[in-house]
């Protein structure tokens, strides 16, 4: 958390590493007070072959990263609303600005909540319908491979990735939902039973250009069958690295 670059990948040997992925792209992971899955996101980036760069909430400098991951956790305890206070962290000013200029951003769980609070993505995440925190291995369908973070999947591909949240119900008004659907911006959808009461089983969405993606499930916890249900989540990280290499980021 103190050094600028994670040099020693904390990942088990050979675990889910995609040898064909490009090396070198620098992907930042922001640590807010209360972030929890920041190390796991860093680990997933390294496992995918990228260079993981820890970013600190109080530092408005993005250190020249090529993309940013906003990780899971309970930033500021999530006491007010999830992501509501983190949105005002100095680093977010830089992230929002860069995101408007096309910097790819992936928000996972708390990061998704934060993206909606920061109005980089529409809608909001509300309390789970069950009123309980839910942690389980979830079947998902990747609805769109036309984003910076899902280009490595086939549209319609089914994957299994953990969800773990207490406020993961995606809500928005009908007009917004209809627009998301018609513009192909629903990126992942829950299959089987909906874990949190999300409208239209939505698990993740993208902005219009496909650079910004937010989802409640945790792909960083599905990179190694030893510590997760599958390695199905790896595609989010290899997708962005491949996009970097081919220089198509933000220019869909």
């Amino acid at each position: 958390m103190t050094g600028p670059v994670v040099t020693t990948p904390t990942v088990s040997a050979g675990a889910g590493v995609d040898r064909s992925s490009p090396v070198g792209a620098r992907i930042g992971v922001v640590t807010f007070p209360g972030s929890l899955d920041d190390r796991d996101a860093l680990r997933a980036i390294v496992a995918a072959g990228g260079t993981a760069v820890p970013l600190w909430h109080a530092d408005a400098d993005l250190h020249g990263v090529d993309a940013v991951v906003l990780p899971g956790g309970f930033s500021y305890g999530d006491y007010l609303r999830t992501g509501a206070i983190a949105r005002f962290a100095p680093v977010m000013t830089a992230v929002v600005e860069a995101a408007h200029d096309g910097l790819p951003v992936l928000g996972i769980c708390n990061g998704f909540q934060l993206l909606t609070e920061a109005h980089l993505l529409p809608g909001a995440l509300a309390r789970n319908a069950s009123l309980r925190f839910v942690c389980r291995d979830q079947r998902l369908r990747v609805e769109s491979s036309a984003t910076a973070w899902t280009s490595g999947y086939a549209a319609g591909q089914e994957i299994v990735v953990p969800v773990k949240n207490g406020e993961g119900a995606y809500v928005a008004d009908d007009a917004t939902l209809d627009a998301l659907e018609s513009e192909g911006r629903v990126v992942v959808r829950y299959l089987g039973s909906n874990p949190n009461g999300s409208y239209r089983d939505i698990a993740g969405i993208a902005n219009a250009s496909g650079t910004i993606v937010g989802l409640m499930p945790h792909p960083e916890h599905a990179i190694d069958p030893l510590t997760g249900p599958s390695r199905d989540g790896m595609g989010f990280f290899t997708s962005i690295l491949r996009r970097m290499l081919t220089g198509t980021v933000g220019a869909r």
Partner: protein
Amino acid sequence: MPRVVVDVMLKPEILDPQGQAVAAALPRLGFDGIVRVRQGKRFELTVDGEVTDDRIAEVRRAAETLLANPVIEDFTVRVEP
């Protein structure tokens, strides 16, 4: 339809981490005039028929048993004007 509001707040002596988190965030956003925040719950109840004294008494009992946790919370009941 008539509406009865039950406000539930943590007892003053109980730690309120939620209120604290908000209070700590406000000055960072440039709101300096707010010195203390406590966060509680607000229930808006729509009651059947008129708001009689009996209804209010019922709401009060509901507040006591379900809406508030008397071990750590206080509540007030009032009819919305």
